[in-house]
């Protein structure tokens, strides 16, 4: 019984010794900080940092070529951890998520032709400008879904796609994947969005889509955070809260108020739309009355002044 034990442990020892010697002889210098960082990175290899994969990012961090806060999936917590390993101070970044800025589904912006070919947005866009009435709107073929490493983009029932802000890490891959540039990065905390990218004038927009922005500027009158460039409104500032009235003022229903509706309901639910029309009408009526009262008060004041 003893002999086999001795032999085995002898063989084991000899090989262990050889290995130890080998490790010394063939030692390769790897910055251990790099290994540590690589361990805490998400490992999704999404490329959001701009380096080839997580290991590439780790190497770039150690060499001082990368900003610790540039890993979108990891967020600010990870940035702090990386900073601790590297021994540098890290400034927290505002968390961003992707937003598909189009609400013109099959019902709002129907297809103008039958499309036959590769099921890919870029491919469809290149064929006669795409089969959708709106030449700027979401084609819904899901090139962004393919590009997303986190399954954060899902198709809606009416031919659109939407981003789940909870699953989105803000890596920005979908922004590159969208051939029409509909997807943009927005602060995660922002509630109100203009869901249209069509820059055409009112007549063309109305012909293409029933929920497209016509550039009427009514929203901009409600808040300084929304500005109209040409014939398209967009949120230009995140420093102030956007009032719900900005959405209610829109005659097209192009502005989505996340404080009142959920995005899936808004995109594909006629109930949310109906509710919005009702609230919008009420608001407009109230606004009219308020204005009339104001005018009256002013007129009276002026009268008083005269008198």
């Amino acid at each position: 019984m003893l002999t086999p034990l001795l032999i085995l442990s002898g063989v084991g020892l000899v090989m262990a010794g050889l290995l130890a010697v080998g490790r010394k002889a063939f030692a390769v210098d790897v910055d251990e900080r790099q290994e540590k960082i690589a361990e805490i990175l998400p490992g999704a290899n999404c490329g959001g940092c701009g380096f080839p994969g997580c290991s590439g990012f780790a190497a770039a961090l150690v060499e001082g070529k990368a900003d610790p806060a540039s890993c979108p999936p990891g967020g600010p917590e990870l940035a702090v951890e990386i900073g601790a390993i590297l021994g540098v101070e890290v400034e927290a970044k505002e968390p961003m998520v992707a937003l598909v800025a189009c609400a013109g589904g099959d019902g709002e912006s129907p297809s103008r032709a039958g499309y036959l070919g590769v099921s890919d947005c870029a491919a469809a866009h290149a064929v006669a400008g795409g089969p959708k009435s709106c030449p700027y709107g979401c084609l819904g073929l899901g090139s962004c879904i393919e590009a997303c490493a986190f399954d954060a983009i899902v198709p809606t029932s009416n031919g659109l796609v939407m981003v789940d802000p909870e699953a989105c890490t803000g890596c920005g891959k979908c922004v590159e994947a969208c051939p029409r540039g509909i997807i943009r990065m927005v602060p995660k905390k922002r509630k109100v969005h203009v869901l249209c990218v069509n820059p055409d004038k009112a007549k063309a927009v109305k012909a293409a889509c029933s929920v497209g922005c016509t550039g009427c500027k009514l929203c901009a009158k409600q808040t300084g955070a929304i500005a109209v460039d040409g014939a398209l409104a967009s949120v230009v500032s995140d420093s102030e809260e956007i009032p719900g009235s900005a959405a209610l003022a829109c005659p097209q229903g192009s502005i989505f108020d996340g404080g009142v509706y959920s995005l899936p309901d808004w995109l594909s639910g006629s109930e949310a739309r109906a509710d919005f029309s009702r609230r919008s009408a009420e608001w407009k009526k109230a606004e009219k009355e308020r204005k009339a009262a104001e005018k009256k008060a002013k007129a009276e004041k002026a009268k008083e002044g005269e008198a």
Partner: protein
Amino acid sequence: MTNKLFVSSSPHAHGGASSARIMWTVTAALVPAAAWSVWLFGIPALQVILATVLFSAAFEAISQRLAGKPTSLTDGSAVLTGLILALTLPPGLPIWICAVGAFVAVVVAKAVFGGLGQNLFNPAMTGRVFLLIAFPGPLTRWLVPRGTGAQLFDQPVTAYDASGGIVELGSKAVDAITAATPLGLLSERGAHAVAALSQGQEIFIGQMNGSLGETSGLLLLLGGIFLLIRRIVSWHIPVSFIGSVAIFAAITYAVDPAHYAGPAFHVFTGGVMIGAWFMATDYVTSPMFPLGKIIFGVGCGVLTMVIRLWAGYPEGVSFAVLLMNATVPIIDRYTRPKKFGLRRLTKGGSDA
């Protein structure tokens, strides 16, 4: 304008070729040889053909249903696989073994790879080789063809009862009668046993025993030429396959005629004809370009002969085709045609 126009990428014209038509044409080209085998062996041959074709189709439909894909039996590929598999099997093979073969061919060799066009190995060949290794007994019991008696190629035939025991020829218990195939004779007893056969018409017309599709070289050749005329197969693989078998056999025969059989014998016995025209030419599992096709054909021919002459199995076509299937990605990688614009300038212009 009331209706919507269709938009698609150019071109807006199509030549009308269809995968399904190709598959059915190949199937049609095999029908004469299949009919000949039924004439030769009777019901046992028909039973094998029907069983493998029906089981192949059924397995294809089931696996497509499971994969959530639309059923595409009309594209003919499952029926063709079943027919080719049937032609590589001996007549009278039990139906359940045919079913196993169809399963391996259609499900294991094709469906799990993603279906038509994605498989790496010829499905029918995979099915046959699997059966040969798993059921060597039933796969090597050969029925005596019509028109021959108790003697076939100067050898006595053996009679079996239903349980597989050897009984006297002519007794009531006879269930199957077998005799070695020409290649079996060559492998077991040497070249002198087939010397007479090599000169006879039997091997050309197909008056011999063997698998269903190993019999009529003539009808298979006609089927192959039909495919050649219809431009469904190119000459490269069949010619290089058959040619290399013939050259290999001619060389060994010239070196030692007492030991080796001649080229005609090797070309017209066993599976060379069906293999060269119908199996090695399977688009999915053969090279795409002319040079690669020739390399592939020569490889099939040489490996067939190496296995026939020096390995344990008397026949090597199916092994050879499977082995060469594995080389296709490498062959394709190194035999790509030279793209336009690389030819040397004859005159004028600069070399930039």
